[in-house]
């Protein structure tokens, strides 16, 4: 898994979205993607893993497996969940360094920037910040050793 770099995956997604003519197709695709997201185990849907957004909530679980950061996530809103699916596809199973060093530009390029507007309060901005913080924490930890 994740032989490709984060940048390569981002380009892949941009190409996939290139075929859509309008927002309707894009959002329908996001809805499909939301269904593909491995459902987070109910037992992790606790306040500990909750990222509160005013509009929708996001749960994020992080593990370190073989030196790579593995993200599992979920949301109570479908569109948010679809975007989470994309974020997990790009960012999960990566070494902390890559997560920290790579610019996340694909959301903007596929025309979903509005979903990352801090004003949307859908929890996604906090989620991405959280993902990077975890990566940073893991990196710090591994350097300590």
């Amino acid at each position: 898994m994740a032989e490709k770099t984060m940048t390569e995956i981002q380009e892949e997604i941009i190409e996939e979205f290139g075929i859509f003519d309008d927002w309707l197709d894009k959002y329908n695709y996001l809805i499909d993607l939301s269904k593909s997201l491995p459902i987070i185990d109910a037992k992790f849907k606790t306040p500990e893993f909750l990222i509160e957004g005013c509009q929708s909530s996001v749960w994020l679980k992080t593990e370190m497996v073989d030196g790579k950061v593995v993200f599992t996530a979920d949301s109570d809103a479908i569109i948010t969940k679809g975007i989470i699916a994309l974020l997990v596809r790009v960012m999960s199973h990566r070494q902390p360094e890559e997560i920290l060093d790579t610019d996340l530009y694909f959301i903007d390029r596929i025309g979903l920037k509005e979903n990352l507007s801090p004003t949307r309060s859908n929890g996604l901005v906090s989620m991405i910040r959280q993902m990077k913080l975890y990566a940073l924490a893991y990196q710090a930890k591994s350097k300590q050793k």
Partner: protein
Amino acid sequence: MALDINKIRNDFPILKQMVHNRPLVYFDNAATTQKPVKVIESMDRIYRETNSNIHRGVHHLSDLTTRHFEEARETIRKFINARHDHEIIFTPGTTAGINLVAFSFGEKYVRQGDEIIISAIEHHSNIVPWQMLCERKGAKLKIIPINDHGELLMDQYEMLFSSETRLVALTHVANSIGTINPVKKMIETAHRHEVPVLIDGAQAVQHGRVDVQDLDADFYIFSGHKMYGPTGIGVLYGKEAILDELPPYQTGGEMVDQVSFEKTTFNRLPFKFEAGTPNYIGGIGLAAAADYLQETGLDEIAAREKDLLEYGNKRLAEIGGLHLFGEAGNKISIMSFILDDIHPYDAGMIIDKYGIAVRTGNHCAQPFMERFGIRGTIRASLVFYNTHQEIDLLCEAVEKVKQMFN
């Protein structure tokens, strides 16, 4: 006489905007209303022609601007039929006005063990300042409960009074679902218990005539930006006799009379409560908005909005799986609803793509949402410049939402 809706829509430049390549349908009026040209130009003109800081100036522009600002106060006095100009305090908005009273009234009259009554359908701005006051003073908050229609329970209200009750703070109209509370009767009840009443009029003054003397409200508070006026300005009305007794809240600038390092005395009403340079341009813009509402006719506005509500309710009722919240007999044209199994945020995202501005979420009324066991609603709040066609577009968008997410 019915309103000439084409003429009215022409008064609001923004209504011609395109959003996502569609004509804007603005249904977020409870959050803030749009502004008529008259209001926009009134402020533009000051900035270009007469701007100058008010009060104590001996020069011509200062004099002129001061007059305009004091005329604005008089316009607002008439707008809500207050007895005196100096009962009109300009504030930055409703929240600021409520905080002012919570502090000044609280300092003067609220002690350990006292009680303050609010309702279950208040905006956070009429909850949290009272919570903070109660915390500071060791006082207690009592809540008027609601029924399933979103109406306050009058018999329960009456029972909340005790000899410890110091104030009732109550919204005139609920921003989450539009219920118009019977505030006149409720004020009467409170006065029978010799308790003064603060009315949060943020969702009321823009929808019909308000007469503070007829209501006999002790405080009446509202925001400019929700009544077709500018941001950053609002009004606190208070009865002279009460305002006179209260200590000032913020201090500094014109609101002081004599200052020495030993002792400071304060100016008279309304200046006592207007610390610093007030938003005088906002105040003049707000008066222009009040004028616009008077000219358009508040009764005509109320009638038109009633018609929009009826049509909207009827059309939304035709949509399967849609549940309306707040079916008070007496309400403004706010339609707050949820769709079976669809998150309000998802719905909002799609409705937005249709160029329709609705609000989703808890509308700063979390306790209300909890009462109904929901996290939020989709809220379409309509005013007189909205149309039946726009409601049809909303229904179309909602059908699309259902189709996409089910």
